[in-house]
C-alpha cells in the first residue's frame, strides 16, 4: 500500500463509518431498535459482517455493536512524516468500510423498500438490482463452481463514454466473468452507459447493476463472502479462511473507472483483503509487491483497450477463449441474454414452427469434417420477423464415438447456440425454440454460423470422442418434418436404454469432484439411479466426461463389494471417498436420508428433510423462497448442510433424482414424500405421475402436500391423514 493510498483508504473509511453512524441514528429515531433489518431472502444476514465477524445483524439495534467494532478497528490517519506502518491499518480500514457499507445498504432497504428491483433483471423504470439473494447466489454459484464463470469484475464509476463501457463489458463477458457495477464518476454510471449502448444488463447476461452509489460495491464483497460460506463450507466468523478461500478460488478484481475518491480507495482496500487486486484506468500510485493478493495489488493507468487483459493477468487467471469464427461475440455470459418482441429477426420452434435438433453417428467415410450446409432459406434470404421451420442435424464420426454419446453432444447445442450474442435458445430435441436478434443479423449472423459454432466448440470440448463432424440446417418444412420423425424414433430408443440402466447391474460409478474448486471436501459419486445433486451431471455425462478427459474431475469408481445393499454402500466407493475428500469423509450411503447420507454441496437443486411427525420426508427446491414444514427455508437448509457435510436427516439431491427408483429407497422410496413446493410438483409432474403409477399408488401426487396446504407439520398432517398418505402407515422413519 503506498502511503498516498493508505492515507486515502483510512480517510475514506472514516467517512463511510461516519455516514453509517449518522444513518443508523436517524433510523433508530424513526424505527427503534427492534426493527428487523437485512438484505432480501438470505440466510447470511449482512453477509460480510456475518462471514467475517460471525455476527448476525437482524435488528436495527444489532448495528450498535457493529458500529462500535468499526470504530475499534478504524485506524488513526496516516502521519505525513515518519508514518507508522500503514499497510495493515489500511487493510483493516478496508474491511471496516465493507461493514459500514452493509449497514448503510441495510438501512436503505428499510427506508426505501423499492429502491432495488430485488430480482434478476432490471425493470422498465429501475435498473438497480441490489444484493443478490440466495437463489441467485446458488444458481450463479454453480457457474463459479463448475468453471463457467471463473470470477467477477467489480466496476466502480463509469467509462469515458458508453461505447467504451459496452466494449469493456463485452470483453469481460467473453472471458466468462461476471460484472458487478456500482458508484458513479462525473455523473455517469457504468450500468447506465450499458443501457445507453443497448446492452442487456441483469444477472442473466452477467452484467449486474448492483446500485448507483459506492456503498453498493459491498454487494460484490457479500457475494464473495457467501461463496466461501456456502460452497466452501467455511464457518461464519472464520474470517481468515473466508478471505483466503476467495484469494485462492474466486477470481475477482476491481476496476475503478474514473477519479478514485477516498471512498473508492477504502473499498479497494477491502477488496485486497479478499485477494482481489485493483486495476485502474487513472494514474494512481501502484502497489506491485506480492503478498495479500496473488500478484500485484494495485496496477494503474491502464488504457481501456488493455484493461481487461491486464486485469486477468494481474489476478492470475487463465481463461481459455473460445475461438469461434462468427460475426458476433461468443461466451457463456451471453447465455442468459433474451431476444424479445421488436428485436426478433428470425424465430423457429417454440410451437410456432416445427423444430428439431438431432445428433447421430455415422461411418467415417460418410462425414466430411467441417461441412456446413443450409438447405432452404438462410437469414439473408428472409425479411425481419420471419418464422421458419428448422432442423439442426449433426452427424459425427470417429473411432471413439459411441451411440451413448449422441445425447450428450446433442445437449450441448442448447447452450452453445445461446453463447452467441443475439441468439436465444430454449429447450432441446423436438421442443427446441430459437430466436435470432436483429442486432446479430446486422453484424452478419447467419444460420450457417450455428454450424460454425457447433463445429468449433464440439471439436474443442469433445474432440477426444469423435474425429469428424458435419452440420446440416434444414429450413424447409417437409425436410424438417422428415428429420423429426427419424429423430423421435431415436429418442424413444435412447430413453428406454437409459431407463433400463440400474445401479445393481452397473459395476462402475463415476465420481464428480467438479465443485472441489469451491467445496474442497465434497465428493459426488454418481450412479445410474442417483444423478448429481446439482442436476447437471448424470451417469452417462460422467462417463463421457471421463472419456473426454481421463484425468479430469469425473473418474470411474469401481463400486466393489456391497457393504449394505439397502442403504447403498460399497467398499470401493468408500475407499474412493476417503481419498477424494482428503480424509474428511470415510463413508456414505446412496439411498438413505437417515443413515449417513451422501455429502451435500452448496449447489444442490433440492434438499430433502425428514418430517418425524408425518413419518415422511419433504423436499424443497432452490427456487422456492418460502417456509417449509421442517422449519427452515431452502437457503437456511443449504447453509446448514452444504459445504461437503453428511448430515443425517437431510440430503441434497437433483430434481430428476426424485423420480428415480433408488431415491430414498432405504426409507421406502418416493412413498415417503409428504410435502414439496407446488412449483416443483408442477415441474416434475409427468415423471412424478409415472413413478407413482409404477409404485402402485397412482394418486400419490395428489397426496403430497404443498404450501397451499401448509408449511408446518401440524398443518399438513390432517391433509395427509385425510388423503390416506402411505407414509403414515409405513414403519417409523427414525427406526
Amino acid at each position, binding site marked *: 500500500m503506498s502511503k498516498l493510498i493508505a492515507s486515502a483508504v483510512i480517510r475514506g473509511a472514516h467517512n463511510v463509518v461516519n455516514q453509517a453512524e449518522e444513518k443508523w441514528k436517524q433510523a433508530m429515531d424513526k424505527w427503534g431498535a427492534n426493527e428487523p433489518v437485512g438484505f432480501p431472502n438470505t440466510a447470511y444476514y449482512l453477509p460480510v459482517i456475518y462471514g467475517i465477524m460471525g455476527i448476525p445483524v437482524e435488528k436495527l439495534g444489532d448495528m450498535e455493536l457493529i458500529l462500535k467494532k468499526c470504530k475499534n478497528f478504524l485506524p488513526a490517519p496516516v502521519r505525513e512524516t515518519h508514518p507508522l506502518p500503514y499497510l495493515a491499518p489500511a*487493510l483493516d480500514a478496508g474491511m471496516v468500510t465493507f461493514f459500514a457499507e452493509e449497514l448503510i445498504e441495510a438501512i436503505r432497504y428499510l427506508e426505501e423498500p423499492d429502491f432495488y428491483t430485488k430480482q434478476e433483471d432490471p425493470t422498465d423504470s429501475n435498473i438497480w438490482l441490489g444484493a443478490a439473494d440466495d437463489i441467485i447466489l446458488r444458481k450463479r454459484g454453480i457457474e463459479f463452481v463448475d*468453471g463457467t464463470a*471463473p470470477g467477477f469484475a467489480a466496476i466502480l464509476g463509469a467509462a469515458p463514454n458508453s461505447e467504451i463501457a459496452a466494449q469493456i463489458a463485452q470483453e469481460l463477458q467473453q472471458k466468462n466473468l461476471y460484472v458487478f457495477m456500482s458508484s458513479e464518476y462525473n455523473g455517469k454510471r457504468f450500468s447506465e452507459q450499458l443501457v445507453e449502448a443497448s446492452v442487456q444488463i441483469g444477472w442473466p447476461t452477467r452484467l449486474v447493476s448492483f446500485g448507483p452509489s459506492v456503498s453498493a460495491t459491498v454487494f460484490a464483497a457479500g457475494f464473495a463472502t457467501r461463496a466461501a460460506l456456502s460452497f466452501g463450507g467455511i464457518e461464519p466468523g472464520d474470517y481468515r479462511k473466508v478471505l483466503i478461500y476467495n484469494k485462492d478460488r474466486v477470481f475477482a478484481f476491481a476496476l475503478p473507472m474514473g477519479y478514485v475518491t477516498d471512498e473508492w480507495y477504502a473499498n479497494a482496500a477491502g477488496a485486497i*483483503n479478499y485477494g482481489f487486486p485493483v486495476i485502474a484506468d487513472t494514474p494512481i500510485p501502484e502497489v506491485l*509487491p506480492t503478498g495479500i493478493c496473488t500478484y500485484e495489488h494495485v496496477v494503474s493507468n491502464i488504457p481501456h483497450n488493455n484493461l481487461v487483459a491486464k486485469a486477468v493477468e494481474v489476478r492470475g487467471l487463465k481463461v481459455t477463449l473460445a475461438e469461434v469464427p462468427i460475426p458476433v461475440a461468443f461466451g457463456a455470459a451471453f447465455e442468459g441474454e433474451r431476444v424479445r418482441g421488436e428485436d426478433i429477426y428470425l424465430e423457429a420452434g417454440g410451437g410456432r414452427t416445427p423444430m428439431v435438433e438431432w445428433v447421430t453417428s455415422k461411418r467415417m467415410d460418410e462425414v466430411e469434417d467441417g461441412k456446413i450446409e443450409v438447405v432452404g432459406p438462410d437469414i439473408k434470404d428472409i425479411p425481419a420477423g420471419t418464422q421458419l421451420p428448422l432442423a439442426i442435424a449433426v452427424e459425427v464420426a470417429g473411432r471413439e464415438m459411441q451411440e451413448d454419446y449422441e445425447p450428450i453432444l446433442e445437449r450441448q447445442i442448447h447452450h452453445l447456440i445461446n453463447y452467441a450474442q443475439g441468439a436465444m435458445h430454449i429447450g432441446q430435441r423436438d421442443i427446441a425454440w430459437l430466436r435470432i436478434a436483429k442486432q446479430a443479423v446486422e453484424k452478419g449472423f447467419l444460420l450457417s454460423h450455428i454450424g460454425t459454432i457447433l463445429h468449433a466448440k464440439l471439436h474443442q470440448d469433445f474432440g477426444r470422442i469423435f474425429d469428424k463432424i458435419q452440420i446440416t440446417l434444414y429450413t424447409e418444412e417437409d425436410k424438417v418434418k422428415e428429420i423429426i420423425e427419424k429423430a423421435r424414433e431415436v429418442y424413444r430408443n435412447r430413453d428406454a436404454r437409459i431407463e433400463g440402466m440400474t445401479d445393481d447391474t452397473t459395476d462402475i460409478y463415476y465420481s464428480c469432484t467438479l465443485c472441489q474448486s469451491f467445496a474442497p471436501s465434497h465428493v459426488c459419486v454418481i450412479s445410474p439411479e442417483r444423478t448429481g445433486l446439482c442436476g447437471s451431471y448424470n451417469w452417462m455425462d460422467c462417463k463421457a466426461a471421463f472419456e473426454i478427459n481421463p484425468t479430469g474431475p469425473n473418474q470411474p469408481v469401481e463400486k466393489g463389494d456391497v457393504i449394505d445393499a439397502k442403504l447403498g454402500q460399497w467398499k470401493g466407493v468408500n475407499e474412493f471417498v476417503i481419498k477424494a475428500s482428503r480424509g474428511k469423509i470415510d463413508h456414505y450411503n446412496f439411498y438413505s436420508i437417515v443413515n449417513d447420507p451422501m455429502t451435500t454441496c452448496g449447489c444442490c437443486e433440492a434438499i430433502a428433510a425428514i418430517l418425524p411427525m408425518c413419518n415422511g420426508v419433504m423436499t424443497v427446491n432452490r427456487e422456492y423462497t418460502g417456509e417449509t414444514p421442517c422449519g427452515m427455508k431452502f437457503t437456511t437448509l443449504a447453509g446448514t448442510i452444504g459445504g461437503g457435510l453428511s448430515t443425517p436427516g437431510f440430503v441434497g439431491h437433483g430434481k430428476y433424482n426424485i423420480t428415480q427408483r433408488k431415491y430414498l429407497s432405504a426409507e421406502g422410496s418416493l412413498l415417503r414424500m409428504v410435502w414439496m413446493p407446488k412449483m416443483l410438483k408442477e415441474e416434475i409432474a409427468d415423471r412424478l405421475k409415472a413413478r407413482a403409477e409404477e409404485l402402485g399408488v397412482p394418486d400419490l401426487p395428489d397426496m403430497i402436500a404443498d404450501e397451499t396446504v401448509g408449511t408446518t407439520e401440524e398443518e399438513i398432517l390432517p391433509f395427509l391423514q385425510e388423503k390416506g398418505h402411505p407414509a403414515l402407515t409405513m414403519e417409523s422413519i427414525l427406526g
Partner: protein
Amino acid sequence: MADKKAKSIDQATIELIEKAAKDNCNIAFDRADEMKPCPIGSVGSCCKNCGMGPCRVPLPRGKEETPEEQMKRRGICGATAETISARNFVRMIAGGSAAHSDHGRGVAELFLAVAKGEASGYEIKDEQKLLQLALEWGIEIGDRSNNEIAIDIGEKALAEFGKQEGELLFISRAPLKRQEIWRREGVVPRGIDREVVEIMHRTHMGVDQDYDNLLKQGTRAALADGWGGSMIATELQDILFGTPSPLLSQVNLGVLKKDEVNIIIHGHEPLLSEMIVAAAQDPQMLEMAKSKGAKGINLAGICCTANEILMRHGVPLAGNFLQQELALVTGAVDAMVVDVQCIFESLPEVAQCYHTKIVTTSYKAKMKGATHIEFEEHDALTSAKEIVKLAIENFPNRGSNIHIPEEKTDLIAGFSHETINYLLGGLFRASYRPLNENIINGRIRGVAGVVGCNNPRAMHDEAHVAMVKELIKNDVLVLQTGCSAMATAKAGLLVPEAAAQYAGAGLAEVCETVGIPPVLHMGACVDNSRILIAATAAVKDGGLGDDISDLPVAGAAPEWMSEKAIAIGQYFVTSGVFTVFGVTWPTTGSKEVTDFLFEGIEEKYGGKWAFEQDPIKAARLMIEHIDKKRAALGIDKARERVLYDMAMRRELDEV
C-alpha cells in the same frame, strides 16, 4: 586525552568526548587508548582456571607452526591450546547465557508474584499472548481468570531454569527439522541453569579436555539462552508489560532537556523501569518537580533497559553503550538509574565531575559511590517514586557546565514478531506470506539480523551503520536489537523515509507498500529470541525450505564486546544462521577451534561463524551467503507468472 576524530561517527558523541576532556573527566574512550587489549587473552590463549597457571599458549606470530611446536604449546596440566581456547570460549557462552537467563528468571519471578497478587502496581497487559502461551504449554484455560492461568505459566517458566532432564519447552517452537538436528547432535538443553553449571564444571581444571565436546556443551548452554532464558524473558515481559507495536520516538543525547528533571534508565531489565515510567507521570511527582524549578520530568534510556521501555512506551533513547558516560558529561542528568549488565563501574566517578546521582537498584549489582535503592517487586512503585524523588531533589544541584548536544533523530520502533505478522496483512489476513513472497520474487534478497554492542576498540557506531547501509542497499531487510539498533537509529535508518533514500529498489518498494523502515527495531538484546521466532515463522509459512538454515538470512554483531554477544552468536549459528562478528575474535589462539567454528560447524548445524572487521566486507559475506541460500532454494531466477484455470484450482488444498 582521547583522539576525538577516530572515536565515533556520531557528532553528539564527538562533542561530549571533547567536553569530557575539557572537564578533566576520564572516560572509556580514554582508557581504551591508555590500555591495549591483552594479546594473549584476546586470542583465548590464557588459562587461569587453576593455581598452577595462569598458563599462556599463544600461537606464534608470523610463521607456520610445526606439529612438534604445537605439541609444546600446553598448560602445566597438559591442556592444549585447543582445549584452552574452547574452554575460554564456552565460559564466555556460560557468562552470556547466565546473564540473559538470570534476567529471564527475574521476569518469571515477578510474573508469578503479579499473578499471585503479590506485586502491586503490575498487571497482565497482553491477555491474548497469555492465552496463546497457555495453549502452547497445555495449561488449562476454561473459565479460569488470567491470574490463575498466569500462576501456572509462571511456575512452569520458573521450573525451566532448574529442570534436570528432558527438553526445554520452547525447543518445540523451532522447525521440526531443526529440532531433529539438535537431537541428533545431542545438544537439546535439559534445563537452563544446568547447562551453565555444567560448563563451569567441564572447564574446571582437569575435566573436559576435548574441544569438540566442550563446544558441544557451549552449544547446549547457548540454546538454553536463545530458546530458553531469553525467550522466557521476552514472552513473559510481553504478557506482563504488553507486546510492542510500532511507535515513533527519538534517539541520541539531544533528547535530554535543559529545563526538566532528566532521569536516565540504564541496564537491561524493564521490571523497575516500567514503574519509573509510571512514577515520572505521577501528578505528585510532577508537582514536586515544578516546585524545584523544573518544567517536567524527562525520562530517557541507555542500553537495553532503554530499548525495553522504548518498545512499549516510546520513551526516548539517550544513547547506546558507549554513550553511558557521555550522558553524564552533558551535566544535565539528575539521576542515572542502573540495574544489571553493561554498566560501567566508572559511572560514579564520572558523576563526580558533575552533579548526577547514580542509583543502583539490583541486589546483584552494586557499585562503590552509588546510592542503592533496591527494587522491591512487592512494592515497586514506592521504590520507583523514591528514585524519581531523589532525581527531582538533585535538579537544583545542576551546575552551569552543561552541554546538551543538538543531535536527536526520529525513529520507529516496536517490531515484535506478533506486530510484523499483523503488519504484513492486517487483522484479517495477518501472516508472514508477503515477506516470503517478496523474498521468493527477489524484491527482498534476504533478511539480516544485525545486533550487538559498541566496543571502544572500533570507531563507535561506524561498523553498525556502514554494514546496515550496505545490506539495505542490496535489498536485504535488516532486523535489529540492542545497541546496534540505536546506532542505525541515530543515522536515520529507522524511519520509513530511509527506504527511498538508502535501500535498493526492491526493498524500498516493499517498505513503501507496508510503510516500514528498511531496518526494523525488534527490542533489547534479550529480544534476539524474537528474531528466532520470526525466522521460524518464515520457515513455517512455506516456500523457503523447511529449516532456518534454508532461509536466505545472515546475522552479525560488528561491534560486539560482551559475553552475551558470544552466547547469542552461538545460538544463532547452531540454529542454522551464518553469523559474522567484527572487532576481535576470541579463539584465534587455536587454529583448529577457529577452523571448526568458521567451517566445520556448518556440517553439523547448517550455520557457521565468520570474523571480519571491515563492515562492508562483512556485509558482502552475508550477501554472498544469502545468494548461496537463494540459489539452493531455486529462487535466484525470475519466476514465470502462473495463471490458474479451474483444474488447477481443484488441486488446491483446503485452507
